């Protein structure tokens, strides 16, 4: 079961990871020309004209855009959180549900295997792919930036881990929501919408004290990239809350799937 799921989901994993690697590679290749001849400073000067809360929302108050690492800490990780979040949520919403959508569930349900094992094997494969994606992108970023710059490697390594936390929670959330429907088509819009909605809530929550409470509605708060950039450490609370949310949603999904009518 695990072997087959690894094989079936490999293509999607390679496409998503490959696309992100190519995008990052292109950015790192062209970035030196963007910031050469003092253009980077001009960009930073231009950013100073933006409202401080907006800069804060994208970590631009902590990192300048005059280096590739600075770009990664601000816009780069925004891009990574979103893409890894969408991949994870889609994976969660599809990996079990596709058996119903593609009507292979009648075959699967007749095999000598429990429903719990079906779900847990698929969760294991998904976690392997999400962790692999985060690891590959992290290693690539460390390698690429060390060639051109001297980034704070400890900070960069910790930052590279941060997409994992919203990623696994979004995966589990997608999985849980998928237990309420029978068709994967419905889940595509829901998953992407959910990730964007949470992302926007996370951004808005950084824009002032009055809206700060919105951060609790966004899983991207769990990435806490500001905390890592400022303190060069992962906030234990974020790690623990991520793991609790992940485990809780997986347990809820198992309970729902156990009772679900599979036709």
């Amino acid at each position: 079961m695990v072997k087959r799921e690894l094989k079936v989901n490999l293509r999607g994993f390679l496409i998503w990871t490959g696309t992100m690697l190519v995008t990052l590679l292109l950015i790192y290749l062209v970035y030196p020309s963007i910031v050469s001849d003092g253009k980077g400073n001009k960009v930073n000067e231009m950013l100073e004209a933006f409202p401080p809360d907006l800069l804060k929302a994208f970590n631009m108050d902590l990192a300048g855009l005059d280096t590739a690492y600075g770009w990664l800490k601000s816009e780069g990780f925004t891009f990574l959180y979103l893409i890894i979040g969408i991949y994870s949520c889609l994976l969660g919403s599809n990996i079990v549900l596709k058996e119903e959508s593609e009507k292979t569930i009648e075959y699967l349900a007749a095999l000598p295997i429990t429903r719990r094992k079906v779900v847990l094997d698929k969760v294991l494969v998904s976690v392997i792919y999400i962790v692999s994606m985060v690891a590959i992108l992290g290693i690539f970023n460390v390698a690429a930036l060390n060639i051109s710059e001297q980034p704070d490697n400890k900070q960069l390594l910790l930052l590279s881990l941060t997409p994992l936390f919203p990623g696994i929670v979004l995966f589990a959330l997608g999985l849980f929501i998928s237990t309420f429907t029978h068709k994967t088509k419905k889940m595509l819009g829901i998953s992407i919408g959910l990730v964007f909605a949470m992302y926007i809530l996370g951004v808005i929550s950084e824009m002032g004290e009055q809206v700060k409470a919105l951060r609790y509605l966004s899983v991207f708060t769990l990435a806490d990239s500001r905390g890592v950039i400022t303190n060069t450490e992962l906030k234990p609370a974020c790690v623990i809350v991520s793991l609790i949310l992940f485990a809780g949603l997986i347990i809820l999904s198992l309970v729902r799937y156990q009772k679900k009518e599979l036709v």
Partner: protein
Amino acid sequence: MSETILEIKNLTKYYGKVKGVENLSLSLNRGEIFGFIGPNGAGKSTTIRSIMNLINKDAGSVLFHGKELTRDDVEAKSRIGYLPSEVFLYDDLTVKGIFDHHESFYRNVPSAAGIHEKRQELVSRLKLDETRPIEDLSLGNLKKVGIVLALMHNPELIIMDEPTSGLDPIMQNVFYELLREEKEKGNTVFYSTHILSEVSKVCDRVGIIRNGELIRAGQVDEISDKQLTFVTVSSDEVDALVEELGVKVLSREEDTVRFANHFPDDELIKKLSNYRIRKILIEEATLEEMFMHYYEEGQADGKA
């Protein structure tokens, strides 16, 4: 007394307000082929999906060897083979790939010993090409793959929903032969179909389901016994004759009527002897006519 393998007790399933099956009870004995017949929408697939725990029962239970068959009873599931009415398999695999995948679940199942040899035998008898991708298979070939998957792990209970749809007549005969062999080995087959001729070919017992309820169950011979005959009579006194017998006329052409008869032959002859009969034809009902009779009778009762 024969051993009961599967027992369905008071099974009830509603889809919202729509009845799937209601209070359905039946049992299957070791080494028999039980035909489960009924028209589309009668509740056959609902019954099967309830047995397989794909859907939740509203009431009732399904017992396998006297023990409730739960969705996570892996040991029981390893001794059951299932062929759904429509076979959907993983399109990215070849026929060989799906068989290898299937075998991997039965490696430590004692009752499935010899699974690979059985697979090879079935593949050869059903003339399957294992190199072909699943996505390229025709409906008939997909069905053949489904049959191999349902039988290769040597299950003692085989549940099949419309198993011959898509099979050509030659393959249908090979399939009937395979079923008879399973029966000889002492395995039990639950055979759901709406094709009545199949039932008389392979089944020992039959259950007729209509509108979610089991309306008749018994030996195939018993169901199609002499209890029901179809009588065609030509007489000048046909109206009086029909009135006295109290039968339902199936067709009428001038003074010739055809009706379903429940009277024993001697009683019928005695009653008819009071009239001037020009021509009489008494036909034994086939299983098909039996089914239609019970079905139409039930429908009329329902309307009334």
